[in-house]
């Protein structure tokens, strides 16, 4: 099967690249083994000091709305972090003390949400807190039932009016209400409804994964890509490539076995260690599909920092590229291959990190492809 571009990895970087190429009239396919880091997404785009029109337009086309409000955001552990650009349902505050009194709602038996930490963190900022619990929908009252964010979010999306009723009864003089981020999975308008109907400032606090806004983002981006005619091969793994000189001709995948995917351009968007875009054993770090050069320390003891919460050097490891993001093989660039997103690790600090890196590098690679003809 032949495409203009084949993309390996269907996370944020791969989808942004795929959508941009389809919009420019180029045919593409995305091959992705399993799901990706968006399922752990806080909703805030790391290292985005600006809100590029190009990104907001691409997201708006997919039905995803973002807002740009440099300041801080509330983390699931009740601390505050700098943030600039986020999905619309994530609150950004100019300063950490965003209210005088907050009502923190929790869900009995739901273990992936830390209301006590939230209260402690907010009290530190001088926000007086009171905890309350929400009644569970009937379906989930049996104690043996697994309560994960997704199961709860389905019910909240359906019964959000009942949440509003409960909060209206519970609220006293609080000017803010903290709700777990358990809505807007299927119906993206629910967070806004809750904000409209609850007579106080509504702030959604992140839960442990899976992340509801992240899953929604993934679903909407994938749908947008498919509506634009992109071919998304889910659950398939790129195995290896056929190369001639410095050019990649095709890749082979697990499911399509001997049916190669041919293209004029290839984009490696396979993520970091977490997504298996990078692999390691005690001796080395490598990139499994194309076997391109990886930047890592030969001395294994230098890979990690003994301080658990400290910066871990291995997180910076990634594939080596030239200025146009062509990965190197023994120092020579593969001319029709591009590496984008977390597979780059920290090798391109000027492109940022996290979601910022994924988006900037995706746009850069797409521009190179569109210019190269």
């Amino acid at each position, binding site marked *: 099967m032949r495409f203009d571009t084949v993309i390996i990895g269907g996370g944020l970087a791969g989808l942004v690249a795929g959508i941009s190429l389809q919009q420019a009239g180029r045919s593409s396919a995305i091959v992705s083994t399993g799901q990706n880091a968006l*399922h752990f997404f806080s909703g805030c785009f790391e290292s985005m000091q600006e809100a590029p029109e190009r990104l907001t337009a691409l997201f708006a086309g997919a039905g995803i709305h973002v807002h740009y409000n440099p300041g801080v955001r509330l983390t699931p552990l009740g601390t505050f972090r700098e943030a600039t650009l986020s999905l619309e349902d994530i609150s950004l505050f100019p300063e950490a003390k965003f209210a005088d009194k907050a009502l923190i709602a929790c869900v009995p038996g739901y273990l992936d949400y830390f209301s006590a930490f939230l209260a402690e963190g907010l009290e530190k900022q001088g926000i007086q807190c009171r905890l309350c619990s929400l009644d569970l929908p009937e379906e989930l009252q049996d104690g043996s039932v697994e309560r994960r964010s997704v199961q709860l979010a389905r019910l909240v999306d359906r019964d959000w009016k009942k949440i509003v009723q409960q909060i209206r009864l519970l609220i006293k003089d609080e000017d803010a209400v903290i709700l777990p981020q358990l809505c807007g999975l299927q119906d993206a308008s629910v967070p806004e409804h809750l904000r409209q109907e609850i007579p106080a400032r509504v702030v959604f606090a992140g839960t442990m994964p899976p992340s509801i806004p992240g899953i929604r983002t993934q679903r909407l981006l994938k749908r947008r890509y498919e509506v634009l005619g992109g071919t998304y091969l*889910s*659950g398939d793994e790129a195995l290896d490539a056929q190369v001639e000189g410095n050019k990649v001709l095709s890749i082979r995948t697990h499911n399509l076995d001997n049916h190669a995917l041919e293209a004029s351009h290839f984009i490696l968007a396979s993520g970091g260690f977490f997504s298996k875009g990078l692999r390691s054993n005690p001796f080395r770090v490598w990139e499994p599909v194309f076997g391109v050069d990886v930047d890592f320390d030969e001395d294994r003891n230098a890979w990690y920092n003994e301080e658990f919460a400290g910066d871990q050097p291995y997180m910076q490891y990634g594939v080596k590229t030239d200025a146009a993001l062509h990965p190197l093989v023994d120092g020579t660039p593969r001319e029709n291959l591009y590496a984008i997103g977390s597979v780059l690790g920290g090798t391109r600090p000027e492109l940022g990190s996290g979601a910022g890196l994924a988006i900037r590098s995706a746009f850069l690679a797409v521009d190179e492809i569109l210019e190269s003809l």
Partner: protein
Amino acid sequence: MRHQEKTSSKHNFEECMKCTVCTVYCPVLQVNPRYPGPKQAGPDGERLRLKDPYFFHYALKYCMNCKRCEVACPSGVDVAELIQSARIKYDRSAPKLRDRILASTDLMGTLARPLAPVVNGVTSLGLTRSVLDATLQVDHRRVFPKYSGRSFECWLKRRAKEQAMYLEQVAYFHGCYVNYNYPQLGKDLVKVMNALGVGVQLLDGEKCCGIAMITNGMSARAKKNAERNLAALRKAGADKGMKVLTTSSSCTMTLRNEYPNLLGVDNADVRDAIQMATRFVFERLEAGATLRFKPNYHKKVAYHVPCHMERLGWGVFSERLLRMIPGVEFTLLDSACCGIAGTYGFKKENYEASQAIGAPLFEQIRAVDPEVVACDCETCKWQIEMSTGYSVQNPISILADAIL
């Protein structure tokens, strides 16, 4: 330094990093709170079961083996295989009479076919359906597939000579559905293959692939069928070098993946020969073969990728094939389960869950409002037709209709 190269055993159980991604995509978990979900039923539960089979939980029967957890898992854990193999290994409860009947698709076919008009009449009667519901717990709201008067095998046997004239030959694993319920699909395949200059043969002694037996606690019988099918596949595939084509994604997944991975039946020598017909046709057309299409043909088609087709990763072949037909206005439906999962949705205890799972798909079909829904799975066809009223056809039938 010494280190362990491989850290993973059967079904990649140890690869699980507890990320919970599979729980997002399990359709049953979203509607049936009694189901522990893929992570708990699969890798988490397996750790306990390995310690003591006491920890095997009856609720694993709610897994409909749709494989969506496997498609979603970023670590390559074969979650559904872990669950189904735990059922095979630890579930000592004898299958109910109802489950035995539902699972015996070929036996049911053999018995029902000669009496087709009577059986079809009887199973569509409200009274019969209530009786089935009360006695066997087959939900009375289900619409039953119709049985055809003459089997596909019988039809093709009469044409064996004519088919043998083609220089190139393929064998066809038609499955129970084409044979007993809907021979038209088999006839459509023959039309398409003949148009490509290829003759179609029956396998020598095809049996039901056994998928329904596996999920209904009858793996010993499934294994017998697997061995007999492999003998037939070997004769065609390995000995004569023919491709063996299929038109059902579930049969294909069973023949290719479930035989070795769940039943322990080695199919390595014939696995590659087993292919969905849409893949075969697409590859032929891509290699330069041509078909003569009807002029002024127009059809609005919405394609639903069945769960097992998604697991095979071959939906792309059907999709591209449909898009190639001049005059087809194509929509790809969102990846979603229709809720039937073979015999699963026929059971009274699953009916509500089954319909709730399918609801988003049905809604999207109504919104797209196509002339026909395309789909490579027979049980999806029953479910979608019953639940939406839209007609559902295999991509091969749509192609057959579009060519001269």
